[in-house]
């Protein structure tokens, strides 16, 4: 097993499937009266969050607590300008506190890599800048597998602001490793031209959502910030929604079995309409529940043994 979870590029197919299989066992705990396992008793997990992300933080917190770990939440407010204590000093503090794992969310791409150099414990990347969000990709893969029964051979369309999306990067890497065919869809300024070469040679790029839908088993809609239009990535929210938003009529062009995913939080009316988000094809609520199981699996596999 790997020592840290920093990038989906570090996961080979065997390790990724081990995480998903372990998550499936962890999921059975959620259905029990006693939602607790003793596996990480006496271990300390620190949630180090430099960005507000209540949903990711509570998901990791629930995961760690269900495994009986002690959880310390460490929220660092403030922008990069008024950053206060340095990441290195914070790392040394966590080290002194005996953190066995640090779950880190940070606005700067790569910050978890540096943290991993400065602490002895395992580092879990809970989203770094516009780089990666590996546990999100794992829970997405878990959700696809539980809905569709497989990952190999699936056609997955990832739609929206790929350029700024850590979710997209992690998903392209992981899904390609697991044998799915990924197509990235969005307005050209938001799709890096060299994304396939950079991440997965098998990935495809398409600027026309309607042509991709009939062949897709999964459509993953990414959050698109309205502010991007102020930087000329697209002219207006209305034009974006018209060309790349998923509404009821587009959803009906999907194959019967296809599912719709969104990592949340959603911009209803922008990249996805309520009709789609609330439809039976939508896995958005399942994704949240699966997040806890997948994070339990990751924490167990990183901390469950003497992997030093």
């Amino acid at each position, binding site marked *: *097993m790997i020592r840290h979870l920093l990038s989906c590029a570090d996961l080979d197919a065997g390790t990724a499937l*081990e995480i998903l*299989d*372990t998550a499936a*066992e*962890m999921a*059975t705990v959620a259905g*029990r*009266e*006693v939602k*607790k*396992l*003793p*596996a990480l008793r006496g271990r300390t997990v620190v949630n180090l969050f430099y960005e507000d992300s209540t949903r990711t933080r509570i998901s990791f917190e629930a995961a760690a607590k269900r*495994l009986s770990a002690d959880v310390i939440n460490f929220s660092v407010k403030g922008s990069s300008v008024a950053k206060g204590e340095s990441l290195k000093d914070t790392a040394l503090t966590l080290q002194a506190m005996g953190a066995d794992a640090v779950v880190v969310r940070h606005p700067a791409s790569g910050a978890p890599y540096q943290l991993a150099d400065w602490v002895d414990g395992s580092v879990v990347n809970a989203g770094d800048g516009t780089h990666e969000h590996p546990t999100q990709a794992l829970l997405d893969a878990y959700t696809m597998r539980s809905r569709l029964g497989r990952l190999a051979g699936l056609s997955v369309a990832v739609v929206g602001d790929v350029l700024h999306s850590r979710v997209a990067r992690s998903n392209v890497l992981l899904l390609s490793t697991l044998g799915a065919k990924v197509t990235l869809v969005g307005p050209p300024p938001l799709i890096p031209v060299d994304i396939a070469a950079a991440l997965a040679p098998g990935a495809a790029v398409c600027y026309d959502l309607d042509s991709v839908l009939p062949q897709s088993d999964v459509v993953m809609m990414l959050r698109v910030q309205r502010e991007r239009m102020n930087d000329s990535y697209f002219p207006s929210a209305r034009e974006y929604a018209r060309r790349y938003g998923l509404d009821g009529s587009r959803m009906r062009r999907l194959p019967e079995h296809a599912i719709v995913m969104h990592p949340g939080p959603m911009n209803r009316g922008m990249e996805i309409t309520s009709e789609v988000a609330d439809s039976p094809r939508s896995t958005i609520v399942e994704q949240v529940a699966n997040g806890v199981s997948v994070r339990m699996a990751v924490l*167990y*596999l*990183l901390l*469950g*043994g*003497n*992997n030093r």
Partner: protein
Amino acid sequence: MAYPPAAHSPTTRQPSVKVILTSADVQRVVDRIAHQILEKTQGARQTVLLGIPTRGVPLARRLAARISAFEGVDVPVGVLDITLYRDDLRQHGTRAVGPTDVPAGGIDGRRVVLVDDVLFSGRTVRAALDALNDVGRPASVQLAVLVDRGHRELPIRADYVGKNIPTALAESVRVTLAEPDGVDEVRLYGGDR
């Protein structure tokens, strides 16, 4: 699964090997335990067999099959994975978690018979009791093992024992079963015999 995991003790001499139970012995022993369970549980009423991976699981299935053959009673069989309850997780690399499969009727109010291959320190059974506690509240819990090799470290005893084998700590007991291993056999390794 033997616990601690059966390992050859390092020795410069060629370790001795001794077959304790042959294939025919194993079948006889399973038949006997099945009969004993029927006797002690008033015909296996309200009884659930839970196998502890790895080799407790096929043993539990065989016991259920023999009980069915003898009395026509279908005893629910399940799997109780104890990995996450072990007290030695940190002494090894991370162990893979196996499935826990509790029969549809659950275990609340039932008589649970835990089934394992070798009873040694008692720590596996301790972990199994903890795991059971999180899955439900059985009326009572019993323990069936193919081999009891002694050296208990906890106050635990088996209700059904296939064979008692006095061993030295340096020795190890290996159980193989047809389902995972191809052949039914119990062997004793090591020591200076």
